[in-house]
């Protein structure tokens, strides 16, 4: 229950410790600037250069993710974008899910989805083999020994 305080009750001084809400606010702006560069670069290379979306297949991704530059680029994209998006969704949950239980469930779901997808995505980037053994030679990147 919300209790209404008597008029002129002095403002509660904030508890000591890290001001997470402030750092979240700063994170949205700092990551936002980086994401403009990272995502515009991602869209330019994947959707604008060459045949755009029609060129994307396993061999295309294999070629990109065998280059350390794109591994770092995609890792930054994954972490920065997912945390930025989840924190933005947290803002909406706080604005619209006024029931305590609903609010809690939605925020736990956001946290769970974020952690699972960051772990999954990071594992995919760093355990990915562009030339998997036994793969169809016509589907892998041209630099693979089995490619034809």
């Amino acid at each position, binding site marked *: 229950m919300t209790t209404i305080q008597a008029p002129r009750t002095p403002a509660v001084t904030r508890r000591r410790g890290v001001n997470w809400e402030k750092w979240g606010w700063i994170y949205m702006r700092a990551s936002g600037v980086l994401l*403009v560069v990272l995502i515009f670069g991602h869209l330019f290379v994947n959707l604008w250069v060459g045949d*755009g979306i029609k060129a994307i*297949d396993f061999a295309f991704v294999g070629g990109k*993710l065998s280059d350390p530059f794109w591994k770092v680029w995609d890792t930054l994209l994954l972490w920065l974008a997912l945390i930025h998006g989840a924190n933005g969704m947290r803002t*909406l949950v706080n604005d619209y899910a006024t029931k305590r239980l609903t609010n809690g469930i939605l925020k736990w779901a956001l946290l769970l989805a974020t952690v699972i997808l960051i772990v999954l995505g990071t594992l995919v980037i760093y355990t*990915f083999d562009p030339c998997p053994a036994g793969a169809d030679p016509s589907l892998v990147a041209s630099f693979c020994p089995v490619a034809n």
Partner: protein
Amino acid sequence: MSAPTGTLAEGHRPAQKKKKSAVAGTLYRGNEGMWSWVLHRITGVAIFFFLLVHILDTALIRVTPEAYNAVIGTYQNPIMGIGEVGLVGAIVFHAFNGLRIILVDYWSKGTAYQKYLFYVVIGLWVVTMLAFAPRHLINVFSH
């Protein structure tokens, strides 16, 4: 100090239909600031749900080349191709309007110019989409 301007109820607006009332422009609601906020939220939610799906579909490169190609192939049909114009449109708006928000927060003249900055965002969005949409749609429909 002048009276607070944000608290006038709708019914108390001066009854001037043709001319802009004295209150117009002092209220946040219904103006550029509100619409940029609404669009920022809607595009943000749309991009977030796409991102969830996009991480999962890209994770299929770790399964087999066939599995990844099957799913990415669905992104290449004409209906999804049109959807991608919408997705990129949402991302480009969210990106430029996000930079506008940063200017409003940190630039000393940002709040004074927030309205004009919104039209700068729209202008940059149009230019970017003119560079993207025709080229992307040609790729989708002609290859």
